């Protein structure tokens, strides 16, 4: 049997829902290739379980494992970077599997993003200057904003079986100084401002004016006071690093 054909058969043995008799016959050593199938699947399944513990608990092991099996059979890992396997699984499953209720889908999205933020590359690419309204803001390069219909970043309270609807804006990022991954909940205005600053196309002041106009907010004393508090919090937590040169 040609090498490429035998490797195709072995890959199917590893990832298909049930390995075919034809493939097992073709490669021989049936029991040992089934052992490989178990080892390959167990390792990949384990990293998904470790990375998404609350999704696993909420969905239950049977349902979670069925999603993993579906992903193996229909897509399989396309990344050579083991830590990125989780994002591929979550992305595929959210797109293809009927995950109900919606909060469970959002929980998977949140946990997968948290894992990804913890590991993904991203470091300041230029000198960071003190915050200045006349300069382009320097936003943490690992930041991702997430808009959800449920506050899934908070664990379910004891006795609570599901999340009520609660529009939620989350900022996930990795702190530069200690590499800790942080989740911060923002109000809609705060989320809009951070999203605009993240574009890094205009000065901090220009972005504030544009967002306020778009949301029909008056730049009065109360707004400016809230803005000062927001900036202080963002800088303190390491979401906003300062200004770009």
């Amino acid at each position, binding site marked *: 049997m040609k090498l490429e054909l035998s*490797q195709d058969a072995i890959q199917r043995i590893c990832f298909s829902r049930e390995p075919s008799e034809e493939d097992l016959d073709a490669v*021989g050593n049936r029991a040992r290739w089934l052992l490989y199938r178990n080892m*390959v699947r167990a390792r990949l399944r384990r990293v998904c379980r470790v990375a998404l513990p609350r999704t696993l608990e909420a969905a239950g092991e049977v349902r979670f494992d069925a999603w993993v099996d579906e992903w193996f059979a229909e897509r399989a890992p*396309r990344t050579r970077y083991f830590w990125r396997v989780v994002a591929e699984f979550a992305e595929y499953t959210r797109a293809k599997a009927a995950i109900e209720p919606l909060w469970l889908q959002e929980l998977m999205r949140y946990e997968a993003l948290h894992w990804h933020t913890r590991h993904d590359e991203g470091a300041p690419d230029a000198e960071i200057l003190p915050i200045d309204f006349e300069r382009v803001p320097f936003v943490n390069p690992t930041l991702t904003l997430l808009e959800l219909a449920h506050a899934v970043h908070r664990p379910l309270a004891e006795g609570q079986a599901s999340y009520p609807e609660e529009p939620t804006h989350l900022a996930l990022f990795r702190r530069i100084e200690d590499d800790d991954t942080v989740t911060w909940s923002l109000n809609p205005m705060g989320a809009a401002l951070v999203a605009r600053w993240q574009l890094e196309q205009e000065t901090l002041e220009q972005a504030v004016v544009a967002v306020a106009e778009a949301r029909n907010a008056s730049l009065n004393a109360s707004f400016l006071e809230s803005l000062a508090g927001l900036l202080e919090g963002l800088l303190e937590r390491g979401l906003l690093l300062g200004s770009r040169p």
Partner: protein
Amino acid sequence: MKEHPGGIGIGFRMDLAEELFERAPDAVQWLELHPENYIRRGGRYRSRLAKARERWPLVTHGLTMSFGCPRPHEREYMDELRDFVREVGTPWHSDHACFGGAHGAFVHDLLPVPFTDEAVSTMVARVREAQDQLDVDVAVENVSYYAAQAEDPLLEIDFLVEVLERADARLMLDVNNVYVNSKNFGFDPKRWIDKVPTERVVQMHVAGHFVRQDGLRIDTHGEAICDDVYELLDYTLRRVGPVPVLLERDNNIPPLDVVLAEVEQLRAIYDAATRGVTESAADRATEGA
């Protein structure tokens, strides 16, 4: 610039990194790391890598180059790998005599290839590509396997030697893998070692393995090294000479003191077996096999 690796090294594990930095034990002379754990990655992996570079010589050992794959290496990965091995200053880069997936998928395991002429040609082509695309010597590691790849298991070493000779490549000799395969397929591991072209060996691996109830041995890197493997290492070092030896521990990682005790045991074997022999792996890597 750090010296070439020599003596006993350990795999650079996040679980042990902080304590390793704090104690910086002299017994650990160099570190091995998997580029796939660092390329495109940030956070603690990157910051700890930078710290490790300041203290130890580093050697890279890949997991996904898949020398047994009939398709050419993914160019994007090879470019990133080339940059990475330059960055860490490794004297050679090794990966496995296996295949790890096809058609863009990755099994994230080291699956064996049959010991056939077609597989030799495939592997020679992949190793040569790697040599062309990286700036360092390329070493091929023998893998442990559980499905027979030939009627005579000793054909594995003939297969490997042909790959090494035709590709003019180095050997990353995994002593534990030789032992595991010898027990699983019933051959004398010393006969296997006797056929190794010693001048091509740049590094060795030793590790612990798991013995199932049915007797099958699985290369887990999650147990203590067994006495037979220590003995085979001694035999191998006496034949090959003082090439750097890595203790692989990737699962069930014990406290650092337990790892260091194994390192000390390896060191004693290494010193006794290589006393009086001065040629190093670095000499081989720079002078040619």
